[in-house]
């Protein structure tokens, strides 16, 4: 295991009952990485994420967090590990009965001894960072889907986690907001040293911000490529990876030319 390994996945097999999604997946996420989990629909990206954040137990293999087996430690230690992670779910997954401020404040209230004033200040800061200053007293039902997502990010950042997980961060965001989110991810990593793990198939953000990645293939049911997305784009000769990274245009040159020549 490398020295600066943050999360290491070793020979992981993911399955729902007897139905195997991916087998024998191994990779390492280093501290400060922006790690992209990519692959076509239904290849098990989100399932892998669920394994990384401890929502699902591996059918075989291990997930190590700072070199410690996630499922080999007792519940208290696991709780500590989980508290050092933040997750942004696809739809934001805000608690609908709480206001945005309460959503962000809840983890702070549960896990820190900060006085109420400090919590209010941190909550305001986090909402401001995602561009939601002044929306403290709104309920999730009263704001738009994109805003809900950003509020979900503010909540994920509440405890200043070491690792932030994003499930399809740009889905449902307009291009400008998506770009701003990418910038924020980069900024968080740079200024706070946060490790970022992203499940996405948004090509633009994938290639521009990813520093490392794993490519899951649905057919062979395992990881078929690893490395920085920009490097994969240049160097990979695997048609499945290239097809994905070039929006299916790889190897379709002839077909495209015919399309153009049509009257």
């Amino acid at each position, binding site marked *: 295991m490398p020295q600066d390994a943050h999360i290491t996945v070793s020979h992981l097999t993911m399955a729902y009952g007897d139905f195997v999604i991916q087998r024998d997946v191994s990779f390492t996420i280093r501290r400060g990485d922006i790690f992209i989990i990519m692959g076509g629909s239904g290849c098990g990206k989100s399932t892998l994420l669920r394994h990384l954040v401890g929502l699902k137990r591996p059918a075989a293999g291990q997930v190590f967090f700072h070199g410690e087996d996630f499922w080999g430690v007792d519940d208290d230690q696991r709780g500590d590990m989980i508290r050092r992670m933040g997750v942004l779910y696809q739809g934001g997954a805000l608690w*609908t009965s709480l206001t945005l401020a309460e959503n962000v404040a809840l983890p702070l209230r549960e896990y820190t001894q900060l006085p109420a004033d400090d919590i209010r200040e*941190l909550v305001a800061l986090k909402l401001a*960072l995602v561009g939601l200053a*002044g929306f*403290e007293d709104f309920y999730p039902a009263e704001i738009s889907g994109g805003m809900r997502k950003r509020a979900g990010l503010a909540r994920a*950042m509440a405890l200043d986690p070491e690792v932030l997980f994003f499930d399809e961060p740009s889905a449902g965001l307009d291009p400008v907001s998506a770009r701003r989110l990418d910038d924020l991810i980069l*900024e968080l990593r740079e*200024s*706070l040293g946060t490790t970022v793990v992203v499940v996405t198939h948004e090509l633009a953000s994938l290639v521009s911000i990813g520093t490392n990645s794993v490519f899951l293939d649905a057919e062979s049911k395992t990881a078929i490529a690893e490395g920085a997305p920009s490097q994969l784009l240049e160097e990979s000769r695997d048609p499945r990876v290239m097809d994905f990274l070039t929006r299916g245009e790889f190897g379709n040159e002839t077909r495209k030319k015919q399309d153009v020549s049509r009257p």
Partner: protein
Amino acid sequence: MSEKTAQLSFQPAAPPDQGGTVVFAGEWCLDAGKNGIRDALAGVRDLTNGPLVCAGDAIQDWDTTLVAMIVRLKRLCAGKNMAFEPGSLPGGVVRLADLAMAVPERDGAGRKHEKKSPLTRLGEAVLAAGAGGKDMVTFLGELTVSFGRLVAGRAQMQWGDVVRVIEETGPRAFPIVGLIAGLMGIILAFVGAVQLRVFGAEIYVADLVAIGIVREMGAIMTGIVMAGRTGASYAARIGSMQVNEEIDAFTTMGISPVDFLVLPRTIGLVLMMPLLVIYANVIGMLGGMFIGVFMLDISPVLYLQQTRSALGLNHLAVGLVMSVIFGVLVAFFGCLRGLRCGRSAESVGEGVTSAVVSGIVSIVIATALVTVAADILGF
């Protein structure tokens, strides 16, 4: 607790009125203790002239706690028109602070919590009740029109759904309905036995149980069980479809949610209720017989004989008519509360509660009306 501390101190510049320096030191983390912050901030507040310079060389570790402090200092400076110089603060943290201050608070986003007088609240409650009543009538109308389409053979309903509803509301409800009805029979017989024994009229326990169960209690108890079981399930299912925008998807496809969701549930439940009530009647009377035979030493044959002579078709008819009405009411309120549910998990909960409460209340009211009507009609 942890031994981390975050320190802040303020040093005014040597010539007065030439600004000052805030010195950050230690670990600026969520779980760190704070030192000297109030004094330092007071010092900054007393400044009349800028610039405010920051010194961050002694910072050992940081998270957004540091960002929050920088934002606070910058706001203070901005309020006094003083220059803020980040000095030797970590660059990334200053950028984050800038980012947090870049988007101004949206106008009108802040909430005003207005206080309402009791009179206003009463008025609003009356208006809400009126709107609720109107909504109910509208839904009744929609359901009627939808039923009309069904009769005309034009309803967008799948009979397969009706079969599923029948399975869900019929056979699967047997255990709970049987349990309640059996206990109801036992309770009626027991209470009756204690009273009738005084007069040596134990045999009339059979009459009491037969008429009590078949005419009223069988239908009422089944209705209440179904309101709690099926009405709640209808409201929860349709309500969560509402949350997922599935109802909107039906509407925009031109499929009537009432046809597709409400009609099969109503038909299935209305078909099953009389059968469930007959089943509950049988079990209830068996419960009564159990007490009659084992506690009052009446022979089973005699008990059955007495039951037969007491029970007329009129009693059965009243019970069955009620069961059909209850079926409509439970399905009506279950589906209505589901369809009118909001978009949050909380509103689904409210919808389910309201479906069960309105179901049970309407069952009791309907029972009173039917009982009076049956009496007037001489049933």
